[in-house]
């Protein structure tokens, strides 16, 4: 099926070339980091993890989120989703690879990375995180590729695949739980030391992940003949709405526990992020709250939620809000104030951002290639295609057949 990724329009190749240029620029920054060490970053002995690890954490959420499409399809036979499943799985593959790359660029001695496998240490959560990420990547590769190949050959999905599909659904929850355990089991880091962190991670993943997936799918629709089924979209948006509400509810629980108990250690990181940090960070943290409020308002109001013109903006606002919370504030608030009640400000350096750009561009490249393959197969089989009236072939909507022939085919 890989050959499908090689046949594309000029625009497709142009986009790939653009991503390769970004990867090239980022890799120069990475080579520089390899030569001189992590002093190219803004991290310090007090804030010993930074942008890389927080991106890793955010992207584990993206990897886990595909399950919000897969689970209804397989556990509830919600077949409206069936042509979306492959995109959830392919997105998970790209996200897993980005996660691993963010870990790889963060370690001080990348050539010794295999020590994690050569000296397996089950008491370390990092060991388990590696295990579940590799497992989840393999499961998605296996399930996604096999299903798509069967679809292309007009064959039913093989029976032996069933157990792997069910395992992969449960596995999705495990990857983000284990990632939360990475943080929530550390004494002396009060912002992380909370039993609800794993639940909050999952809630945040199940709103931000599908939101990112929907945004990418909307872009995909612009460049291919693929069209999401309208009901699949509206179901997913409802899932996003509930997950975001639960996410913010959990955040409110944190605030209550910290401030009503009046325990200094629990209040300090929150006060730091929302009041005492430098004005840039404080503004961003309040932006998170404001954007979270806006996105929830837009999602819970039916006429806004069902407005397909407004939807991309709603989702983008939600993604920014969750990213500011989990992809930025989480790590900084965990390290500040330090366990000895001092403040060491952290802000990523330009080189750090360039290396991160490289990893994101690699992820975008993987998504592009995999989505190109998936949309080409869907086009071959005629599933979930755009009809001239703007509906998807999966929708129960009557289009004029004469116009259908007039639609220019575009890859």
């Amino acid at each position, binding site marked *: 099926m890989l050959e499908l990724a090689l046949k594309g329009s000029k625009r497709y190749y142009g986009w790939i070339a653009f991503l390769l240029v970004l990867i090239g620029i980022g890799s120069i920054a990475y080579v520089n980091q390899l030569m001189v060490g992590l002093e190219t970053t803004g991290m310090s002995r007090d804030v010993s993890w930074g942008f890389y690890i927080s991106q890793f954490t955010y992207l584990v959420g993206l990897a886990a989120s595909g399950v919000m499409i897969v689970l209804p399809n397989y556990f509830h036979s919600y077949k409206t989703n069936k042509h979306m499943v492959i995109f959830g799985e392919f997105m998970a593959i790209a996200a897993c690879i980005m996660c691993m790359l963010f870990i790889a660029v963060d370690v001080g001695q990348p050539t010794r990375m295999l020590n994690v496998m050569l000296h397996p240490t089950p008491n370390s959560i990092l060991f388990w995180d590696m295990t579940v990420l590799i497992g989840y990547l393999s499961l998605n590769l296996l399930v996604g590729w096999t299903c798509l190949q069967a679809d292309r050959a007009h064959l039913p999905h093989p029976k032996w695949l069933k157990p792997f599909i069910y395992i992969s659904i449960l596995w999705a929850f495990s990857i983000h739980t284990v990632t939360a355990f990475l943080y929530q089991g550390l004494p*002396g880091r009060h912002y992380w030391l909370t039993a609800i962190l794993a639940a909050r991670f999952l809630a945040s993943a199940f709103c931000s992940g599908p939101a990112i997936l929907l945004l990418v799918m909307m872009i995909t629709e612009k460049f291919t003949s693929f069209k999401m089924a309208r009901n699949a979209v509206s179901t997913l948006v409802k899932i996003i709405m509930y997950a975001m509400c639960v996410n913010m509810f959990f955040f409110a629980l944190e605030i209550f526990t910290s401030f009503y108990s009046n325990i200094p250690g629990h209040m300090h990181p929150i006060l730091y992020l929302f009041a005492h940090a430098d004005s840039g960070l404080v503004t961003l943290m309040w932006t998170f709250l404001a954007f979270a409020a806006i996105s929830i308002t837009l999602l819970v109001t039916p006429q806004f939620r069902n407005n397909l013109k407004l939807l991309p903006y709603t989702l983008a606002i939600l993604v920014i809000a969750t990213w500011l919370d989990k992809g930025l504030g989480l790590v900084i608030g965990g390290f500040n104030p330090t366990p000895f009640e001092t403040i060491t400000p952290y802000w990523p350096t330009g080189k750090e951002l360039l290396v991160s750009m490289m990893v994101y561009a690699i992820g975008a490249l993987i998504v592009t290639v995999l989505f190109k393959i998936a949309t080409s197969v869907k086009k071959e089989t005629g599933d979930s295609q755009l009809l001239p009236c703007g509906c998807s072939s999966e929708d129960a909507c009557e289009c004029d057949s004469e116009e259908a022939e007039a639609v220019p085919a575009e890859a």
Partner: protein
Amino acid sequence: MKNNRRTFIKLAGIAAAGLAVAPKAMASSGGHSPVKVNPEAVHAKQWAMVIDTTKVHTEEAIAELSKVCHAIHNVPSIEGKREVKWLWSDEYGHTFPEQENPHLAEEVHHRTYMLLCNHCENPPCVRVCPTKATYKRPDGIVAMDYHRCIGCRYCMAGCPYGSRSFNWGEPRKNLDLSKLNPEFPTRMRGVVEKCNFCVERLAVGKMPACVEASKGAIVFGDLYDPDSEVRKVLREKFTIRRKPSAGTEPCVYYVI
């Protein structure tokens, strides 16, 4: 049973090959390993330290101890937020943040406190390390194998005492190469480092360098030996430890 002779020769061959590689195959904890402990070494079940803050409590005095420690262990001197330190000092509020009150005896409040790795009985850094690069030795010392450290810095997030430093850059750039201690290695960039309770000195029967240089202000010994000097001091004087609520059971005690 035609093959008996052949089988015998084969087995003999394998046994001979086994003998040839014997030193390699011997497990490090095996009974007949060709290694043993230096007879001069001092032993303990859990090494511990008591710092008498009535005797050593000025920035200058602790800086002296720090200089001794950093010189023999080739610790680079770096200013600012990326500093590397094995032994350092801080004020009361940063040392015992949970045990501060607004009307603390002024003299105690204004002392400067000596800080180093607590060699916890229940170390979070060892719990989180994904490669066993940091580990607890049978004598209770939390040690590091710099050869194995991948530089993931999980131990730094795990340590609630800030006892761990990462080599963000090349450490030798910040060392006076003409004044290195040739008996001890430096570190390389990209690994974490910390106080080792002078394990290399204990192995030859010496006390840790800071203990020796403190002129009696620091006592060192076995926490599990009721007759040890540490236990004697702990019996007689009031002591506190850093962050007891973290459940790490630090083995560095402070006489207040």
